[in-house]
């Protein structure tokens, strides 16, 4: 067994363990951290395939951005995970059965001689000075220009959607606009009312109406 093979199996074992723990861990923060572990081991797989750039971007994007965000959410929202997990053991048998059958079938199919996965040879090793990034860049800006542009549009939609869904003006806010305060004039706030010097016959009503005017 060559060294890369050993590394592959070790990484895979960790990956599967981490994946299982993501579902079974009681503490959501632990679950998230196990997910981080799973990403790291997947990145290791990329490295084995000589795709250094993908390995790095997996770590940067998923671990650096997605999971950090996720941890924030978990910590900020006080979600009662115990309650969410209530039905877990009740549904576990069915879920487990379905999952196991699924896995079993897939293994049987892919392992069957007809699948002949053995006939797939690995890609030829790259030269020592080959640059992943340069190749990717070249492809992205030439052959894969269209999907690349589309990806940009998808991101734009994501932005628009995020803004549309989250940006809102609260109506009950106590926010004060200093600009408004500065440009205010005396007439806006104060009004002088001329009062008659002599009291008339219905002083009470007069006073009330004066009050209202003020």
């Amino acid at each position: 067994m060559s060294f890369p093979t050993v590394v592959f199996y070790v990484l895979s074992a960790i990956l599967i363990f981490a994946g299982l723990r993501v579902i079974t861990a009681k503490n959501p923060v632990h679950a998230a951290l196990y997910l981080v572990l799973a990403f790291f081991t997947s990145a290791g797989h990329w490295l084995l395939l000589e795709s250094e750039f993908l390995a790095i971007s997996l770590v940067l994007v998923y671990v650096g951005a997605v999971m950090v965000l996720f941890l924030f959410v978990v910590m900020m929202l006080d979600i009662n995970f115990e309650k969410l997990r209530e039905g877990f053991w009740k549904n576990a048998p069915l879920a487990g059965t379905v999952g196991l059958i699924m896995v079993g079938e897939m293994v049987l199919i892919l392992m069957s001689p007809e699948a002949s996965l053995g006939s797939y040879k690995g890609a030829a090793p790259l030269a020592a000075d080959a640059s992943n990034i340069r190749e990717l860049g070249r492809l992205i800006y030439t052959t894969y220009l269209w999907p690349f542009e589309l990806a940009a549009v998808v991101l734009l939609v994501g932005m628009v959607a995020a803004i549309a869904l989250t940006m809102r003006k609260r109506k009950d806010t106590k926010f004060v606009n200093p600009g408004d305060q500065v440009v205010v004039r005396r007439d806006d706030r104060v009004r002088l009312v001329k009062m008659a010097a002599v009291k008339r016959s219905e002083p009470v009503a007069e006073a009330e109406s004066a009050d209202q005017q003020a």
Partner: protein
Amino acid sequence: MDMKSLYLLIALAPLAGSLIAGLFGWAIGRRASHVVTILGVAVSAVLSLKVLSGFISGQTEVFNGSVYTWLTVGGHEYAVGFLVDKLTAMMMVVVSCVSLMVHIYTIGYMQEDPGYQRFFSYISLFTFSMLMLVMSNNFIQLFFGWEAVGLVSYLLIGFWFKRPTATFANLKAFLVNRVGDFGFLLGIGLVLAHFGGSLNYNDVFAAAPALANKTIQIFPGVEWSLMTVTCILLFVGAMGKSAQFPLHVWLPDSMEGPTPISALIHAATMVTAGLFMVSRMSPLFEMSDTALNFVMISGTITALFMGFLGIVQNDIKKVVAYSTLSQLGYMTVALGASAYSAAMFHVMTHAFFKALLFLGAGSVIMGMHHDQDMRNMGGLRKYMPITWITSLIGSLALIGTPFFSGFYSKDSIIEAVAASHLPFAGVAYWALIIGVFVTAFYSFRMYFLVFHGKERWMENHGAHHGHDDDHDDEEPSTDHHHGLGPNDKPHESPWVVTLPLLALAIPSVLIGFFAIEPLLFGDFFKGAITIDALKHPGMHELAEEFHGPVAMAVHALSTLPFWLALSGVVVAWFFYLKAPQIPAAIKQQFSAVHKVLENKYYLDDLYFNLFAKGARALGTLFWKVGDMLLIDGLMVNGTAKLVGVFSRLTRKLQTGFIYSYATTMIIGVLGLMTLWFAGIILR
């Protein structure tokens, strides 16, 4: 204008008139309605005459082509198409010309009717349908025309739909025709199934010779000749439409419709549709002697026994109606004797003189203020001279007076039957000979009762008033229509009525003389009508004996039919003018026979009790057991209950929780996977 658009114009002009009068009649008024419909029919008539003259002079070619593809189902194309040959051209002329006369006549006849525009719309629609029927080049369109004329006939018989007798009559006509149409449709079905899958006449005729000896099994073990079964089924359709025994019962009742209709539809054109169809199908009928024999039997019974019924009728229109039945029987016998051209010849002459007689009768009825009972008439010749003369011409033509048109066609039929070698031809011949006497007798009985003798409306009116109620005009306000009062005088009808009478009288006299030679013994119908000369040499033998119309007429003076007709006239004169007590005595003496005749051989009662009541009983049974129990109870409500249970169940599956939805999806994938890889997984 090319021929295709010319033919289209011929067919569509009446339709346009009909639509305008029918849909906008309320807006454009009476006058515009009849102008527009008459214009449409006149266009058809003029163009049809042009087409016919083209054929006679040899300039026009036979046209056969589709005009519009209606639908395509599984490789079968159903098109609206025209087949215009000489047979068609002749029918087109007959239909459009008689229709034109009737249109003009209607202006006078329906003058006071509130349904004036509706009536014009109907008769124009009829003209369109009839033209489509005769011009068709395929069975589908034929069937369309067939049903369309049936529909218009139904509408027109029940035109005065407030009269119970009229609605009964139109229902009867409709139901009896249904029986015939059912046979017809089965026949078309057989054609579609066995004749190469096409419904075009030409394809069918081309496929027919190869199928001459083909047999089919309808009941297991019994082999029937395909051609015979097909032809008989098609003829069943003709029996309904052309009122042949035993499906003739609707025609006398159809006289409930206004008289112009009786002339146009129930004498001149629609009832000949069946005969036309059989002539068109002559290539098929020629292959089956059995079918021809069947045709002949049906025709013979109609020709003779319906004539007898004409003798005992007192309603002037009923007399003409039974005479029509009897004449249709003559034509049918001719078809059976393979004398298609003679039949079509008689169709043509009969169309003119019978329309004339009907319109004459209508004129009389108008003169009598809508009293139709001949016992109240008499001596009308003084008051209605034109009607009198034209009716006399019509009657003379009908009984086959030499040189009149009816003589040539009727005599040809009798001769053709005599020359036929079919087993039943001998019986048919004698039946027709007797029929000649009967025809002459009832025709002149009517003629003498109406136009000669005492002026009976003064004395008899009160006595027969009750009897006539059925025939009174619909409107309650027009009480004076109950017939003439003792002091009223009949008056001649207006020119719109007499003009058609005169116009129809001319061909009634002349057309036979001029048309017999080309039509029967020339090659006018060559290509349109096929006769198997080896098996049915009748017409050929006749042609050899024919030496011109004058010789034929002179020769007839020494033959039996002429003397029988003459004696019929004399007997009628003697009975009804000279010694009116004799018929009463005979009636007394042979009251049983008279009763049978008066009840139309009890066929109506038989049909009513057997079929109508039986069908109702069967219907009730089906309704109770089939509908109420099986369909409503088990199928409809049962299904609904089942569906309800099921839908509540599926609604339960829709829990509203994402995870259950996701699970469903996963299980779906799993299911698909398992189904497709079961083999691999199980291994």
